[in-house]
């Protein structure tokens, strides 16, 4: 067993265990922290796959952005220290069952499937390559999605501002 393999399994275990903890702990802050761990674990897997750029993005956006956002929202909406309410047992079991069935189904299909594979030469996911493509308009260029996302982010921003910056009190 090579070192890479060991690292992989450790990363995998870390990610999954964190994920399970993130959805099961009754302390909301711990959940946020476990989410953070999971995201870092996923980033680790990207590193493991030598996709450095995406790993970096993962860390910056998720860890630096989204998690912080979530923690802020927890601060805004939650009295700290209170335990999360427990879901009904029936719902829990049913959800677990549904999730497991889905998982089993997908894994079954995935493992039965023999994937095709390209024979063409790989493109290295370097920052330069990515940057060129990102703003390219020709074959393999992603300028259009880039523009779309930018407008989307603008729209999301406007939406957030309008909704969150409400002035009048609620009348129900």
């Amino acid at each position, binding site marked *: 067993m090579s070192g890479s393999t060991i690292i992989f399994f450790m990363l995998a275990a870390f990610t999954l265990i964190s994920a399970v903890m993130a959805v099961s702990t009754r302390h909301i802050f711990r959940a946020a922290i476990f989410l953070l761990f999971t995201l870092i674990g996923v980033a680790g897997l990207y590193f493991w796959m030598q996709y450095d750029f995406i790993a970096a993005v993962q860390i910056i956006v998720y860890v630096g952005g989204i998690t912080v956002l979530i923690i802020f929202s927890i601060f805004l909406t939650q009295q700290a220290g209170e335990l999360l309410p427990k879901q009904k047992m029936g*719902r829990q079991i*049913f*959800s677990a069952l*549904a*999730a497991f*069935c*889905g998982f089993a*189904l997908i894994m079954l*299909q995935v493992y039965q499937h023999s994937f095709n594979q390209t024979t063409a030469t790989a493109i290295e996911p370097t920052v330069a390559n990515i940057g060129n493509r990102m703003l390219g308009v020709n074959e393999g260029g992603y300028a259009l999605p880039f523009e779309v996302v930018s407008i989307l982010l603008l729209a999301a921003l406007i939406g957030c501002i309008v909704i969150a910056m409400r002035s009048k009190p609620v009348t129900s």
Partner: protein
Amino acid sequence: MPNATYIALIPLLPLAAFILLGIFGRKHFKNSAGIIGTFLLLVSTALALYTAYGYFFDYGKVNGVYQKLIPLQYNWLQFSPGLSIDIGILLDPISVMMLVVVTFISLMVHIYSLAYMKGEERFPTYYAFLGLFTFSMLGLVVSSNIFQMYIFWELVGVSSFLLIGYYYDRPSAVAACKKAFIVTRFADLGFLIGILVLSFYSGTLDFNTLIQRLTSPESSELKTAVAASFLGVSALTWGVVLVFIGGAGKSAMLPLHIWLPDAMEGPTPVSALIHAATMVVAGVFLVARLFPVFSMSAPALEIVSYVGISSALFAAIIACTQTDIKRVLAYSTMSQIGFMMFALGVSGSGGENGLGFTASMFHLFTHAMFKALLFLGAGAVIHFIHSNEMKDMGGLRKYMPITHITFLIACLAIAGVPPFAGFFSKEEILLAAYQHNSFIYWIALITSGLTAFYMFRLYFNIFWNKEHEPQGEHHHGEGGFAMMMPLLLLAVGAAAAGFIPFGHFVSSDGAALESEFHFQFSIAPVALGLMGIFTAMWLYKTKNNKPDKIAVSLNGFYKAAYHKFYFDELYQLITKKIIFNLIGRPAAWIDKNVVDGFVNATGSTTQTISEKIKGFQSGKVQQYAIYFLAGVIALAVLFIYVWK
């Protein structure tokens, strides 16, 4: 060939009276309606007489045989090639004879009603209806096409309905007119199906063609009709028997007679016209019209004769017990028509065999005279007494002498006392029966004795018996001239009509039939008739308690006869209990609850399901997501594993 136009006018003039008086009468002819109607009918009668003269003495006879002439025919409705309703005029001895009878009796009634119905609120309507009836009856008798006959048959029925229901605000009249219509309609169902059967096998609706196709031995139509059978009876028999049912209904034959006594709710002149002289003999006329076809089927003739004779006897027995004078006359009518009917039944076709046919028609003719007379006379009595019940009458001979004499003539005629008209016709009928079927002959003989008895029972009860106590201004009882003239004219007919050599004109094959007079044969019926008369005289000439005693001694039988052998009750049972409760009510119930219920149930089930499944939309977003995932998994499994 006769001129079609004026023959057509015979029925059309009364129709014109109907339209004119029906539409404008109420406003414009309030008082003159009677005169208008009578005048139009007078013209019509004159034309009918002229036609009869022409037919019998001028153009009708070719080579010694009276022809069936069709001076007018118009294609009214074409069903399919060869099968059409043609409205036309068929002249043959019986139709010409009927033209005369109908117009004459109708004219008498028109005239009589001028006085009798005077002052009625719906006077114009009355004359309009009379016109409609006369038109329909005339149309019926001249029909050249079996469907045309059916058409006028129905019209006759409806005009009878209208006239019986003339006093529409009397519940009893309403019930009577409904009953008359419905019972005859029920019979007409048989007629209609009979027409369908006959027309299918003969391929035509035209009388002449139909008779020709179904009687000539070599015709293929006849062979098929005889060969085809249903329930073991040949199609031909079915056809004519069904047609006969129609005739039996109209002619009040057993067991379809129940409407006739009730029909006396109509004004009395109407009873004279419709329920004595004309409409009720339509059944006889129908059988006579199709007689050649009937004669091809022995079972059918048997049925006709037995229905006829049993009705005759049955009605005669009931007539002996009734106290309403119009009802007595009604049952007597039924009895006499039974005579005509069985006369046809015992007749053969052609030559000497056709005696029954001639006798029947002869009796029809004479009966029209004396029965109309009886009714009109009874009308005069009722007009005077304002009651139909015998117990309110008695000793009227002093107050209404003319009525008395004419009534007596009519009674003698119907009783078969020579030389009055009834004697001759009844004699021939009995002779025909005697030659054919002795059982029927004996029954007929007894019935004719009974006839004499109940007629004179009526006569004595009205004009003799107890003395009448005049009340108030009822000093002289006779109606005016308008009422007396018809009585007198009819009395002449009733007295003298028997001397017409009827066989010369009317016979089953158109050739003259010499009727011989058998003196020795007449002894028995005349004797029986006289016996009946004297019995009646003994019982009823003066007031005594003998009738009551006899009634008591005949207890059960008398009661049954008095209650008309419970036929009405039987019908009540069938209609109310069976038709209404067992068919009508369930049908309505099924419609409300099953058919409709199914539709409503579909609606409410949908609503219920809609209510039941609302839990899916629980408002819980997580549950939505679970359903979402479940849907995804279900679809995936379905399409990966099951539905490839």
